[in-house]
């Protein structure tokens, strides 16, 4: 997911401009002094400024290689991106499905799917998923008394 610095910088410039524009309608303090808008406006201006600092060298090709951080992950393979997307999908599935289906079933299914996808044999994955779900349920649901969604299961 390496994105060109010029695009990221432009993104910050646009975001900064949008933040600034959205603060124009904020109320002022008594006597017309700046109030809630001041801090976000300062941030917005700095964001635009540093965004430009990222865009200009990237576009002109003058980026100082010696001081730039090497990206942690300069280029994920397609497998890597799929894995990352699956993690995000798992969180979304939990948010959407667990209120109706319940914590135990949803979590077991998510864990089983992810473990299997990442290379665990299916039987081992099923056992690990069930055990881990139960462990998390006992810790959070029973010991810490977090009301985890019950869904289809009522205990």
């Amino acid at each position, binding site marked *: *997911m*390496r*994105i060109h*610095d010029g695009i990221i910088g432009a993104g*910050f410039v646009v975001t900064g401009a949008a933040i600034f524009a*959205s603060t124009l309608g*904020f*109320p002022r*303090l008594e006597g017309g*002094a700046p*109030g*809630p808008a*001041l*801090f*976000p406006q300062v*941030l917005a201006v*700095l*964001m635009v400024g*540093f*965004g430009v*600092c*990222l865009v200009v060298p990237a576009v002109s090709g003058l980026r100082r290689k010696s*001081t*730039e*951080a090497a*990206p*942690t*992950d300069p280029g994920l393979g397609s497998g*890597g*991106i799929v*894995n*990352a997307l*699956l*993690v*995000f999908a*798992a*969180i*979304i599935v*939990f*948010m959407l499905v667990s209120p109706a289906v319940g*914590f135990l079933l949803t*979590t077991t299914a*998510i*864990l089983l799917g*992810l*473990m299997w996808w*990442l*290379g*665990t044999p299916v039987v*081992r*994955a099923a056992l*690990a998923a069930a055990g*881990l*779900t139960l462990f*998390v349920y006992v810790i*959070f649901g029973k010991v*810490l008394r*977090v*009301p*985890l969604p019950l869904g289809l299961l009522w205990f």
Partner: protein
Amino acid sequence: MAESLWAALWMLANPTVWGVMFLASVYGLFVGAMPGLTATMATALLVPFTFFMEPFTGLAAIVTMEAMAIFAGDIPAALVRIPGTPSSAAYTDDSYQLAKKGKAELVLGVDVICSAIGGIMGAVVLMVAATALAEVAIHFTSFEYFWLGALGLSATTMVGTGSIVKSALAILFGLFLSTIGLDITLGYPRFTFGSTELLNGVNFIPAMIGLFGISEVIRNVTAPHRPFEITQVNHRQIFRGVWGVVSKYRWNILRSGAIGTFIGILPGAGADVAAWLAYGVSKRFSKTPEEFGKGHMEPVVDAGTANNACLAGDWVPALVFGIPGDAITAIVIGVLFMKGVRPGPLIFEQQRPLLYALYLTFILANILMIPFGYLAVWASAKMLKVSRSILLPGILIFCIVGAYAINNSFFDVGVMLVMGVVVFLFEANGFPVAPVVLGLVLGPIVEQNFMVSMIKTRWDLTQFFTRPTAAILAVLAILTWLAPVYPILFRRFARSASPA
């Protein structure tokens, strides 16, 4: 004082605290010994549990876990040439080469003892420096706190590795997040988009879990992984010969303990920076610098002492000023606020038993490191064989449930998800993550103190420069902001001074 100390001992004598410290030790050793998982992630995942604990018990859990994790990062560095945490990276090659030469036991024994000594040195400095600084800080007003916050933000950018522009943008992103919710002057809702959940701002804990938990799951599932080739180690032998090494390098230990603690006190610099700096100083003053990187004990002693010494140092600005020393103490400050404890000089007056108990915990955790370190080395081969395809989904579920558990809210899980996506994009493009959390923590400090100062002086900006302490802090902050210009000025000066 005696009364406070007695109360602190009473707090520490609580069996629940001991149970929590035991579990936190095991957890810290496991996370630290697993390559790819960091102490910061471990702290973020621990926070939902601390939510259900007494303030001191939660802090004791974090202190113990943190100390154990930073030490345990040395284990895979020696056995598989992969640092368990970034703090062990500086001396990984030396540790591994020593292990390959048949000295795995000795290097791990030295790691344990030097980590413990460094940690205790840091704790002693924490006790002395924090108390002394608190007496100065009690006279601070909103002007000084504004400059301290500004200094913390700028120091974070300057001491970090990598691009200053990207660090600054990461800080600005964190600062922007801190503006979400009701503003402090008029209670006006900013950037909430009509959401009632955002009126109180971005919930700190889910944000931390997204920033440090989800990001590490993503980093690990996207990185290719093959089983480790583990160097065999006989745990029964790890303390044999350690005394000789410690005695030989006693001045190195003292020097690196001091370096580590000093780096810790600087806002924004963590244990990894301390280890690299101690490594550099060690090489500079070593009689055998050519041996560094080839399996030399000296850098292991120096950097291994410094990274653990740094941990207590990080707590100095956090406790005295509410300014985080690193990402972990940024999370700690969030925990303290969550528990109704406002970090700052007043806690040195009002919560002395809590502070004393915290100091004692630092010392106790570092003493406990010796037997626990022994056990960790014993279990190291098994820990390194834990299946990552089972571990990583497990961590993901802890992240999700931890984020949910704070308010029993799926909205918070969504906050965690958004932060996870942002960090994924940030890291893939060379943006550091720690400045985001520092911006999130320091944003309210900077804004609130600026606005309070402005309102009480009717917008007289000169007050920020005319009070003596504020003026000193202002000069320091401005000098830090100008840091990127110094190399350019220096080059120009050198060019003009050199003969044509």
